[in-house]
């Protein structure tokens, strides 16, 4: 990574190196948020002036179980570096059981992604209620940090979709 060269070349300000890196690559993260809980949680985070990374693009879905595995794969194809799915806590789904089904699907999908050798850390499921604004911001910050550590997604993604 060019960051190290920068550090060596000039007088090595870490902040400067950081800035160069950020300019080069910012993680692109897609968050599928359930309308009834985490989407409202995001609102609450906003109105409570809690921040979450701007790289996270939220897509509102009616329920976590609306997330077809293809959505996730498609997001990766279009250049996402990480995909997170947020739904109501198990037992609290607006449609009673949607998140239970989503939970099984995602467990199997994540396992398959791992099996074919793509980084499993790029996908995540979190349960965040409408009252958990702070938790929403925490979850998103943690995930963004994780994705930044993993770096750019090259294994899953259509390279033609990148500039």
């Amino acid at each position, binding site marked *: 990574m060019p960051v190290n060269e920068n550090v060596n070349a000039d007088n090595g300000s870490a902040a400067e190196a950081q800035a160069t890196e950020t300019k080069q690559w910012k993680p692109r993260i897609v968050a599928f948020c359930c309308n009834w809980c985490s989407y409202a949680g995001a609102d609450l985070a906003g109105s409570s002036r809690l921040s979450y990374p701007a790289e996270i693009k939220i897509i509102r879905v009616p329920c976590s179980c609306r997330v077809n*595995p*293809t959505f996730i*794969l*498609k997001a*990766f*194809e279009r250049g996402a570096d990480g995909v997170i799915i947020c739904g109501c806590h*198990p*037992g609290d789904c607006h449609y009673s*059981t949607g998140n*239970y*089904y989503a*939970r*099984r*699907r*995602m*467990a*199997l*999908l*994540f*396992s*398959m*992604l*791992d*099996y*074919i*050798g*793509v*980084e*499993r*850390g790029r*996908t*995540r*499921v*979190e349960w965040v209620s409408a009252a958990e604004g702070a938790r929403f911001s925490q979850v998103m910050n943690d995930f963004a940090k994780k994705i930044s550590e*993993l770096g750019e997604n090259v*294994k*899953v*993604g*259509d*390279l*033609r979709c990148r500039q």
Partner: protein
Amino acid sequence: MQAVSKKVLDRARELMRDGTVSRVAGWKAGEFFYDCEPALFETEESLKDLVYNRFCAANLSKFLITNDIASVADRGRTLVLLKPCDTYSFNQLLTEHRLSRDNVYILGVGCEGMCDVDRIRALGIKGITGVDESEDGKKLTVRTLYGDGEIDVDGVLVNKCETCKGKAHKIFDELISDNEEEGPRGDRFECVRELESMAPAERFAFWQKELSKCIRCNACRNACPACSCRKCVFDNNASGIASKANTDSFEEKLFHIIRAFHVAGRCTDCGECSRVCPQGIPLHLFNRKYIKDINEFYGEFAAGEEAGQRGPLISFEAGDREPNSVSDKGGD
């Protein structure tokens, strides 16, 4: 197997003659005697082409629905010949209401393992003109243009038969078999475990190598009895994953992950996908991974064990594992 084979052909003719069934779904030889393919026999006369031999690996359950043979009641019943492993697929199709049980008469046929002609050829045997079986069914005498030779059946079995699920028919109206009750053979998850134990980068390279061979002919989908949707996502041009040559490595994976996911919890591990793939891609490694995961995560489940089961992806338990427990395992 030759004794069983004769009985099967005779019985099929009988059932046709006495009007129990109006047609027979079976196999006939293709260009060569070892190219057996599914075929529909509508007259007693045509039954002369019906065969049942070591090369009848094709699973006829899917054949019944591709041709909508068994959905029209007033056309009379259809006789279908099903090997033990094929009956799982039949049950699964019943579960999914893709077949009407009343329209089908199932003749369960005994099976001692099907042979793969490519594996015979791989032994350096060329110009095959015929095959004879030893009394105990363990040896084959292969007749060729250049003389005869004897080989072990075990060495030339079709991939799916190497780890046969067992010789018990799960559904039938009548049985012709001389298989003594025989449980599963070998460990069908060994190959999955082997891959799992590799480093992620090695796994990635493995799949890259295999999947880049895919020509998107859709043969795997067409042969798969679990791929029974009337309208398939891969036929939808707007889906972005419709049949077409892959332009990059991700598209290759996309097709396979989606297909494996669609049949997860419904796949009976009948092995047809791997068998029909013209590129020799080990597709069973995908399906068995899902079967193994489902067994480990949600308890043992065998799709097609009986009709009317509730599959693992359309049920749940409050205490199911969290998806993150899968992705937090460590590694990259």
